């Protein structure tokens, strides 16, 4: 049961203010996004139409703590097919950004590992200018699977290394200061 007293009518405006979320209010819930979604085909709990509908109704907490939104594979089928140009893939990104800020502020908990990996990746780009594959993947494995789990991936890492596909050390570009300034500029809201 949805209690209208618990809805946050401002949530849709909050999403629309986030880069990528601008078109959320154009959605008329036709379900076109969901019928073509490859993730929905294997997991019915991931339903982009339902996420959009809940967001538009103002079910803020429920949307922000919905683990399934981290299952979007960013394949852009929904984005391509949406008759209202809602840009659903990017709306999901906008919702994720709000969820991450709320989690940082200690207001909600995110159980999914997706933001952990993404943030490790982004941090490595922030300090090196390029992503540090061995370091990021290794740290992620240790944090999510422990030493035993991480060791399970060692044979694959070794094989990649033998083929000259994996570097032990990070590659740093010269313009890391420019990268830092880009981060600073886009973080200003």
């Amino acid at each position: 049961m949805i209690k209208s007293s618990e809805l946050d009518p401002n949530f849709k405006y909050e999403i629309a203010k986030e880069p990528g979320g601008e078109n959320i209010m154009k959605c008329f819930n036709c379900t076109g996004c969901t019928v073509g979604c490859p993730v929905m085909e294997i997991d019915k709990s991931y339903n982009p139409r339902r996420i959009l509908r809940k967001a538009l109704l103002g079910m803020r907490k429920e949307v922000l703590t919905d683990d399934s939104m981290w299952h979007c594979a960013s394949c852009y089928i929904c984005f391509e097919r949406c008759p209202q140009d809602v840009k659903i893939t990017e709306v999901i990104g906008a919702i994720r950004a709000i969820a991450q800020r709320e989690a940082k502020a200690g207001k909600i908990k995110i159980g999914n590992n997706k933001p952990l990996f993404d943030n490790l990746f982004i941090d490595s780009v922030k300090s090196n200018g390029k992503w540090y594959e061995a370091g990021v993947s290794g740290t992620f494995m240790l944090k999510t699977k422990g030493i035993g789990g991480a060791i399970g991936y060692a044979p694959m890492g070794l094989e990649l290394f033998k083929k000259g596909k994996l570097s032990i050390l990070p590659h740093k570009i010269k313009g890391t200061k420019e990268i830092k300034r880009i981060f600073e500029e886009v973080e200003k809201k």
Partner: protein
Amino acid sequence: MKLAYYPGCTLHGTAREYDASTKAVCKAAGVDLVEIEDWNCCGALEAIFDKELSMGLSARNNFKAQKTGLDLVIPCSICSHNLSRADTAMKKDEAFRKKIERALGEKYHGVKMKHLLDVIVNDIGIDAISGKFKRSLKGIKAVAYYGCLLVRPSEVSKFDNPENPMSLDNLIRSTGADCLPFTQKTKCCGGNLLMSKQDYAFILTKKLFDEAKATGANCIVVACPMCHMLLDGQQTMIGKVHNTVIEMPVLYFTQLIGLAMGLSEKELELDKNMVPASKLIGSIGKEAKVEVKAASKAQVAEAAE
């Protein structure tokens, strides 16, 4: 033809064979590639949801490309999406452009950029490129796998039909290889979920193998290092998890046309693919034999009945 070249992180790492085969094929086709200086990561799929950061990181590469005065070619579908999206935003969104110009202390005027497949199929042209072919690849029965960002969203990638693209199919056929119908050609491999939801990524990729096998393909041809990471790099793991043996070589389209150009396996770094391509390469020109074998198998089955 002279083009600025943005390889992106994977082409200097796990997709090094795509970098090598891109360079070899472009050289043979008379295309000069000038790698842009001190390029950085485009943010890949990990920053794709942080739209401004993703576009900001990508935009720095566009500034570097602008300095060359050349059009830009990008072999990775993800980088190509990110850099193109950033270029459009820099032209249309003044507030965003000012932010990035402030960060980098330069003015942005725009760069023409294309995915490598678009350049080869539409700028060089299939007729011109196939004029450089030295041998027929008859015997190879491929399916063309486009994945996601190579053709979607069509407001960013404009060179082919987003629902039923054909450019890679046509290019494959021009080598003399068969290119079989593949309804999964634009379905997602789940690459973005590989780390956080591996079981889903594996199910999505497994579906691609299932149909490729059902069509009778003996290889899959791709144009994206992330797709290749799943289809080639993770193939053994996917087989293990799903209790099956897949054994499906997955070539970059540059490796395939490189073979038709008569370039060596070493130049195309075919030994760097995780799934060996030796049996596939051995099948080139031996189609008749394979058909005879198939016929005799059918006869055996008939006899058994």
